[in-house]
Structure formats: C-alpha cells, structure tokens
C-alpha cells in the first residue's frame, strides 16, 4: 500500500478502536489509539500474513505484549480481514470471542494470548527461537509498553534474545510516556530504554511512532539487520487522533460516553478528510 493509503487505513483502524471501546463501555483507548499507525503498517504492509490462512506455519508472528491495547489490535486485524469489522462492537461483551485481552484460542489472527504484562515478549522470543531451530524465514514482532518495561521479565527476555542473536525478532516499544498512575517519571521510569536494549545486544532504532514513513523505514532497517535482534523505540502520542484523549493519563483505561464518542469520531472524520 502507498503511505497515504496506509495513513487513511490507520485512521479507519482508530475509528474501529474508538467504536469498540465505546460499545464495550470499558477498555484501553489511549494506548490503542497511539499504536494504530504501528498496527496498521505491520498488518497491512510489513508482515507476511494472510487472513485466509491464519495458521500458516510460515507466516510472520505478532505478539501484543501490552495486551490491554487489544482494541487497536483487533481493529487492525478486522480491517485486514481476519474477522468482520462489525464484530468490534461486541468487544468485552459476554459471549463474544473478542475478549478484553488477546485470546489466541478464539480470535483469528491472534498468535498469542497476552495481557499479563511482561509475558508476551517471552512468547515472541520463543517463536523467534522456533523459527531459528527450524530454519524458517518468518519474522516475529512484538509490541511492548514503555510502562510494561518496568516488568523484570521483559529484561529476562531481552537478555535471552540478545544472547541468542535472534535477528528474526523485532521488539517495538510503544513509548507514549504515560502509565496508569501517571507519567513514567512519576511512577518508576524504565528510561533510558534505547541504551538498555543496546546493553542487551539489540540494534536500536528511535522513531516517531505516529509517522508512517518513519515506521516503514525502521521496520525495513530491522529486517536488514543481521546477527542481533532489533528494538524500535517508537515515540507515540497516547490517544492519538482523538482531541481530548491525546497525552492524557485519564484515558488509559476508560471508555468514552456517547457525547465523547461522537466528538472523537468527528475528530477522526476530520483527520480522514485531510488525508
């Protein structure tokens, strides 16, 4: 897809995200919206995936380590054709397959159940290791939260990936600077993340995670990097695209009411028209 097309798609993914959280009456819109450009580029351009063959053993893998951003993830998967976009309205409803956090048993396209922070990256490492053991060419991507990086298990996984030179692994850190209790600094900042990943023998790329061209370039660089895994530190705006949610701690895990939903959708419509 052309970059401009991808930007438009990311905006559609944002609409689906907001709609899902609105209908769920709970969930995590802020982080999801911030990561929509990354989700979109991954699923529409970067990754070798096919909605008709979600279990293809040679497909690229994705693990949403920051599992609470399921609304954005699901919206991207739905728009990519893994399941109907309309189903996003059933997110978190009793009986829906769209669980609050990713559930690999029931959701087409979801490679790993996740949501308990720090665990997804380890599963991604296991997938990358399996690829190496089997001599397969697939790549493994995982989206990690910056707040999530406070979990010790993240660094156990990074140590292993670096030591094993898993160059088929690409860790993307969604660096929006905010977590539930406040800014990273107010809580327990894991920064500097770039230097930490470097110390764990990763190739590190720092980008604006809401800039589609920058995402494209970084993922291409990651693909070309041999002998070490790559970490992309993607600076994002939490709540991106919805005016009142942007950079607001309060919208980490809260659903918009009807009025707020309308304002948010109007914001996104306007962005869409400008693209």
């Amino acid at each position, binding site marked *: 897809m052309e970059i401009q097309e991808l930007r438009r798609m990311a905006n559609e993914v944002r609409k689906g995200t907001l709609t899902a959280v609105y209908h769920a009456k709970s969930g995590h819109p802020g982080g999801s919206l911030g990561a929509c450009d990354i989700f979109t580029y991954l699923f529409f351009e970067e990754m070798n995936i096919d909605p008709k063959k979600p279990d293809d*053993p040679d497909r690229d*893998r994705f*693990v949403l380590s920051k599992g609470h951003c399921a609304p954005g993830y699901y919206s991207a998967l739905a728009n990519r054709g893994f399941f109907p976009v309309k189903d996003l309205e059933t997110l978190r409803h009793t009986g829906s397959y769209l669980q609050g956090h990713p*559930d*690999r*048993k029931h959701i087409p396209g979801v*490679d*790993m*159940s996740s*949501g*308990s922070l*720090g*665990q*997804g*990256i*380890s*599963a*991604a*490492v*296991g*997938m*990358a*290791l*399996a*690829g190496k*053991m*089997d001599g397969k060419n697939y790549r493994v991507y995982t989206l990690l939260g910056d707040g999530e990086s406070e979990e*010790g*298990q993240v660094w*156990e*996984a990074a*140590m*292993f990936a670096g030591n094993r030179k898993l160059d088929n692994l690409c860790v993307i850190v969604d660096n929006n600077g905010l977590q539930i209790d406040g800014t990273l600094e107010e809580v327990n900042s894991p920064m500097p993340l770039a230097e930490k990943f470097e110390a764990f023998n990763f190739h590190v790329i720092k980008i604006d995670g809401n800039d589609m061209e920058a995402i494209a370039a970084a993922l291409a660089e990651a693909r070309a990097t041999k002998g070490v895994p790559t970490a992309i530190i993607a600076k994002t705006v939490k709540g991106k695209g919805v005016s009142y949610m942007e950079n607001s701690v309060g919208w980490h895990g809260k659903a918009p009411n009807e009025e707020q939903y309308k304002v948010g959708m109007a914001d996104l419509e306007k962005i869409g028209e400008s693209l």
Partner: protein
Amino acid sequence: MSGVATREAYGKALVELGKLHEDMVVLDADLANATKTQYFKDAFPDRFIDCGIAEADMTGIAAGLATCGKVPFMSSFAMFAAGRNFEQVRNSIGYPHLNVKIGATHAGISVGEDGATHQCLEDLALMREIPGMTVMCPADDIEAKAMVFAAYEHEGPVFMRFSRFGVEPVHDENNINFQIGKGEVLRNGTDLTIIATGLPVRAALDAANALAADGLDIRVINMPTIKPIDADLVKKAAAETKRIVTVEEHWIAGGLGSAVLETIAENPVPVYRHGINDVFGESGPAAELLAKYGLDAEGIVKFVKEHVK
C-alpha cells in the same frame, strides 16, 4: 532400601523420547545437572535450551515454542516451576492451553539439606487450580518413565512432580500399565483405603503390610494423576472400605487430600489427611526428614493407628 530418584528417570526418559520425536525440545533454567535434563542436553544439544536463571522467561519461551508446533518439556525445581512461575504458567501456558510439559523436580521435604526455601509443598495445589492442566506425581522411577511418555502423547499442558530422593519401586519394569487419570490398587483390603501419591506410596504400601499384623486389612491405592483424579476408584474405595487415609509429601490443603475430599464431598466418608500441615520444611538428610514428618512407613503406621479406630 532406596531406589532410583524419579528425576533421574525423567532425565533418561527425555532422551528416549527425544530419539522418537523430532519436535520435542527441552528447556531448563541453569539446573540441568540437578533436574537431569543434562542427559537430553548431551544427547540433543541443538534441541536443548538453557534459559539461564530466568524461570518466568523460560515459561514464555516454552509457550512461544509450543505455538510453533514444538513440544517443550520445561524443567526447574518445583519451587520455581510452579511457585515462582505460577502466574506465568497460568496465563502463558494454561489460558492458551498450550502443549507444554513441565517437569518439576526437587519437590517436597525430600529435597533435604537445602531446606525450606527449596522444598516446595504447594505445587500440586497451585497447578491443580489451572483449568485444563494435567497434574501428576509418580511413585517411583518406573512409573516416572511411563508418565513422561504419556505426557508427550497427551495434547495440552502437563505438570509432573519429581523427587530428588529415590525410594524402592512399587512397580515392576516389565509390568507397568500407566494411564493418565487412572489410579491403581496396589493392595486389596476392606477395612480402610490409603490413597497415596508420589514418593510416599512405597511407605504407604509397607505400612499397610505392617498393619496387617494388627488385623487391619488395608487397601492401598497409588494415585499418580492428581488432576484429573480417578474419581471412580476413589468413590469405590469410599463405598467399600468406608474410611480413607491420604498420604502425600505436600501440604494437606490443596493437594491429593483435598482432591480426594472433593471427589466424595456429596457422599462423604471420613478422610484422614496425612502430609505437611501449615509449616515450612527444614534442612536435614531426606530420609531423616521423611521420618521426622511421619512420611516413612513407621510414621504412616502411627498416623493410621492414631486416627483410625
């Protein structure tokens, strides 16, 4: 008389299985010499993954490998495999119901001299709480080997509890018929049933034989699968012998004793649970500790005499 430790049988069985199945991989967390996965490491270095002292990460890596079609056997001491790792096992293996086998060694007080920090007495309880998890504990090395083979064939997560200390086997190498979910009557009797799991099964059988001299005709059931427990066999024993004693090298809350009680809750008979009760372990030679906590034949005889009139 001592025998071969179940951890030893586990390590050797992994090698035999590895020869048969290319998709099998073994993970450890810097304890290969102790858990006996070292044998697999020596035989199949390319399929052995040492995750270092990082059990949480090992659990996730095993999960990731399983999503790609591998059959991972993941090992550490029970304390770390089940205790430290509980939430990782629950969410990364249990919830997605991945085909990971956990070989947890050094369970119970028979760890010996290392003492309480390493003597896991709650692993059966923890693992039993995970939906879809099969939980097993072999009585001897012969059963351990059969169990490891059965675990490979079983689709889904399995937790196996092994010991550092060996006891005289209750099984015959040429005559073992192990099935997941099946208990086994080692001795028939009508006055009382002892249901035991793991290392103390041998002692329970010896105790029953000793108590025969006192006129007690005791049935002894070996229960290698704690979950799903062999409910039919337990209910039959309850109906026929009217009294049950459970024996386990584990907290009496949450493990075998609890599983037996739950099985007959609707049609209860008295169940006397013997094991470790609300205390941590301590340092000492394994055999001495087993005697101190009443998990040798003498201790089981004493327990039965005290509780069963």
